């Protein structure tokens, strides 16, 4: 059996959970077995996970899991994995999943590959999986030789597939011990897709000259339903909030579309964005290094090009 831990932060299943279950179902098919999804704590619409491929949905409806503690979460998931004879355990490569994956590997005496980006190859029941390493500059392939495998799945690595049937969630209990972490507060930015989950990202750099110029970037993001990001110097000089900083020292993302506006494309910036599926670069300097990493380039003044691009997208949306 393949066990997928489906995250439900603040009671809601997110895209990462649907991706993980879609992936888990495909791994189960490769192994000729079934996929079970597990949720911890309060969750609405757990039955939905059936549509993404889980033939069984388990929920530990214990409100103490509404606060995240990697120790208790790993204990609960490992307990369910052992009781159900799971051969593969999958979590999302998120702040939650990454904090649990290493613990699960120790608890289950399992080999771990974190941040996998594609389906495994299976031979003799063993999984061989790929992930990007060296901040996107290379790809590594690993074979897991232990009887149980733990994988964490990179965001946007697979498209959620909701073509299945929903399955009534089964309530179970686990033994996860008592927690040693007390969550005091969670502050989220409402109304936006968090950067690591965003499919379209509009990002701007020092070429913007002044924080008061960001209106054109916000407008473009609004039209596209995109999340905004920025280069490091922009965050360091407090032109933009720190959580928007992408790159080596900020967040690494892999959206379908990354639009870089007035960003030179330094290697440390590219390290966080070069796994994007399609990159568009807008820069007035034809020699900007970013053009080498781009799929589409516009050499021009961003203050003219960005509003023009926004109008073009609006026109496109109105006619589609």
């Amino acid at each position, binding site marked *: 059996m393949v066990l997928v831990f489906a995250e439900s932060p603040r009671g809601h299943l*997110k895209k990462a959970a649907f991706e993980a279950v879609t992936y888990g179902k495909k791994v189960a098919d490769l192994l000729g077995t079934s996929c079970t999804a597990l949720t911890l704590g309060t969750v609405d619409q757990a039955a939905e996970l059936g549509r993404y491929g889980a033939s069984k949905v388990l929920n530990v409806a214990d409100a103490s899991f509404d606060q995240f*503690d*990697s*120790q208790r979460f790993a204990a609960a998931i490992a307990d369910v994995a052992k009781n159900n004879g799971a051969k593969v355990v999958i979590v999302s490569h998120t*702040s939650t999943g990454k*904090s*649990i994956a*290493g*613990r699960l*590997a*120790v608890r289950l*005496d*399992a080999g*771990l590959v*974190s941040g996998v980006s594609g389906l495994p190859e299976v031979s003799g029941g063993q999984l061989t999986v790929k992930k*990007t*390493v*060296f901040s996107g*500059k*290379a*790809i*590594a*392939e*690993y*074979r*897991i030789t232990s009887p149980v495998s733990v994988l964490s799945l990179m965001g946007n690595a697979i498209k959620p597939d909701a073509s299945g049937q929903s399955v009534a969630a089964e309530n179970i209990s686990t033994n996860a011990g008592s927690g*040693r*972490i*007390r969550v*005091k507060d*969670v*502050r*989220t930015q409402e109304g936006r897709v*968090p*950067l*690591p989950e965003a499919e*379209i990202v509009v990002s701007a750099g020092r070429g913007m000259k002044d924080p008061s110029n960001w209106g054109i970037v916000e407008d473009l993001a609004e039209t596209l339903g995109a999340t905004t990001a920025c280069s490091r110097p922009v965050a360091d000089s407090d032109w933009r909030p720190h*959580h928007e900083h992408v790159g080596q*020292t*900020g967040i690494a993302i892999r959206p*379908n*579309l990354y639009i870089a506006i007035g960003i030179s494309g330094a*290697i440390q910036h590219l*390290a966080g964005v070069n796994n994007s599926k399609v990159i*568009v670069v807008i820069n007035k300097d034809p020699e900007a290094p970013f053009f*080498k*990493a*781009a*799929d*589409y*380039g*516009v050499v021009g*003044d961003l203050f003219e*090009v960005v509003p*023009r*691009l926004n*109008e*073009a*997208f609006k026109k*496109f949306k109105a006619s589609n």
Partner: protein
Amino acid sequence: MKFLVCISQTPDTTAKISFSADGKEFNAAGVQFIMNPYDEWYALVRACELREALGGSVVALNVGPASNETTIRKALAIGADEAVRINAEPKSAAFVAKQIAEYARNEQFDAIFFGKETIDYNGSEVGAMVAEILDLPYISYASKLDLNGNAATFERDIEGGVEVLEADLPFVVSASKGMAEQRIPNMRGIMTARTKPLKVVEPVPFEEQVETVKFSLPPAKAGVKLVDPENMDELVRLLHEDAKVI
């Protein structure tokens, strides 16, 4: 207070990455190595700041060969009081975690610091593994850490926000941007680093459960397609019809 800071050595960000012809090994020839930025700028500096405020000692630990000692001395120059090198090639996260946990088991550390991830293998695995082996709480991606008596308060980065939490000592923490400000070692630090103790410990046996099959370079980009800045309708058309991302 007694703090352990686990430091790794990684290729410099700007290093050109290449592999042996069979794709089995990283080609280290001509590559400049540095201390992993998260370990150096955030974890180590914050541990030193807390030691300066509260007293105690900071131990810097690296699992690696003798050639890593330049990096280890840098940790001493930044402010660690002593260092430990576990004498082995760091073959995998699980191997490294096992070595660190075995060393820390009997040392009564009040806190064990990690970076949020290494910039070479990008695993984010070792901290969680050490926490599990030692049965300790683990606070990952902490951008803020303060100690008050027997408890610690943290802020940790989560998708689209920040979580504020509290835990009792001892704990394991991984540091992300914001926990401290980078420190450039001064001349006095560099001089005293030479005389601070650096202990070498032999590794404990470990059985690998993950094999590296091979490394490869990503396929080269087809090359940029330039679009006339006057004609943004054309860019939209390309993104819709060719790239199919909108």
